[in-house]
């Protein structure tokens, strides 16, 4: 174990950095995607509801690994078909797109559920005071929904962090991928995977502890 850490420690830490970078990037995009499609599922408009549902069902119905292959290999070939030669996505780009789309669908559901958890009377009271639908959403409903959403969002963050390991299949040098290389070179699978596992665990446990603290602070004002 010491040997692996001594020789590959720096590489593994750098890989963890890339893992976190991809997670954070994906999460930011997923928030935007989730906000758009989540709201589409909330508004009283059949057309938007339909688009929102199709997106969520389509993405949730496909395993992340298939989505990643589809984007990494499929998109460049589609763009080549359009007559643009030489287009390629690198592992980070393809991985971030796949992860954002995937996480965005779950985020959309979290945001929809959060908004629907706010009592209808809150919107009605706002409307009765002359505020528009969108003002009521922005000033009254969403701020209350965010409180109930925070634990789920943090949970999704942890899931997304772990899902980055799936993207080792498209060659992005995140933690699992680099770990695999290190173990292949040293032929020490037991120690190697233990180190990799521990690294994930330390980051995730720290994050969830932090999340608990944030959650408690947010709930104190109620």
């Amino acid at each position, binding site marked *: 174990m010491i040997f692996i850490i001594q020789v590959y420690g720096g590489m593994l830490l750098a890989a963890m950095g890339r893992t976190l970078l991809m997670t954070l990037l994906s999460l930011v995009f997923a928030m935007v995607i989730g906000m758009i499609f989540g709201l589409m599922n909330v508004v009283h408009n059949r057309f938007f509801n339909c688009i929102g549902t199709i997106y969520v069902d389509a993405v949730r119905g496909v395993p992340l690994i298939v989505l990643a292959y589809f984007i990494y290999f499929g998109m460049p070939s589609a763009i080549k078909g359009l007559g643009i030669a030489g287009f390629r996505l690198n592992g980070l780009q393809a991985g971030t797109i796949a992860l954002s789309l995937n996480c965005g669908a779950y985020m959309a559901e979290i945001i929809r559920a959060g908004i629907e958890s706010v009592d209808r*009377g809150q919107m*009605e*009271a706002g*409307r009765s005071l002359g*505020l*528009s639908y969108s003002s009521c959403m922005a000033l009254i409903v969403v701020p209350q929904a965010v409180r109930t959403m925070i634990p789920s969002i943090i949970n999704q963050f942890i899931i997304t962090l772990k899902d980055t390991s799936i993207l080792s299949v498209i060659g992005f040098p995140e933690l699992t991928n680099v770990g695999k290389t290190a173990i292949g070179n040293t032929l020490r699978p037991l120690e190697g995977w233990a180190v990799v596992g521990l690294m994930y665990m330390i980051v995730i446990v720290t994050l969830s502890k932090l999340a608990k603290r944030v959650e408690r602070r947010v709930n104190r004002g109620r």
Partner: protein
Amino acid sequence: MEGKSKIHVTNLRKNFGKLEVLKDISLDVHEGEVVVLLGPSGSGKSTLLRCLNQLETATGGQIVIDGYDVTDRHTNINKVRENIGMVFQHFNLFNHLTVMDNMTLAPVHLKLMSKSEAKDMAEQLLKRVGLEDKADAYPSQLSGGQKQRVAIARALEMKPDIMLFDEPTSALDPEMVGEVLAVMKKLANEGMTMVVVTHEIGFAREVASRVIFMEGGYIVEEGTPDEVILHPREPRTIDFLSKVL
């Protein structure tokens, strides 16, 4: 009594899917009148009230408020609603805001008042409902009666000239009903035009200028409290009153 007409409803109908809740309602409310809607649950009185500010859209008929046809899609309903205060059974205070912010949110956001004007006015209104020391409290820190008094003050902050009350005391513990009715009575005496859905017969007798009895989506009987409550003519009114009095 015959001031100018504030609310003019003609042949109002409202369906929820196949269910006809309001069948053919025509009604006038004049300036300064206090109209109390009585009737068994499911009679459509709350729906009628909610149609007046279009929280429920009418299926048919016409509602004119202060000269604005609110059933016309081209009317700016938000502008009309600024003049119609509404008080709900479950208060519906904004739980994430203090009492003060609950009151100043809408007028400030709609640019009807500056922040400081809104604050001054809120302080006066809180004094009027006896809650001047609760400006910085959150709704969760108030009793039911206090919440409802804040809700009334919040509606008044918009300087409405019509107030709608949807069973304002039905969710309250009995000992808190009085404080809310007292505020409403004061408001009525100051000349506010009010439409009130309630089961408080005592309030209706004392404060109402007109009582309307509804059942099954129709207006069955209407008149002064004396006529409708003490000397009802319709058998359905008599039956209802015998159960609640």
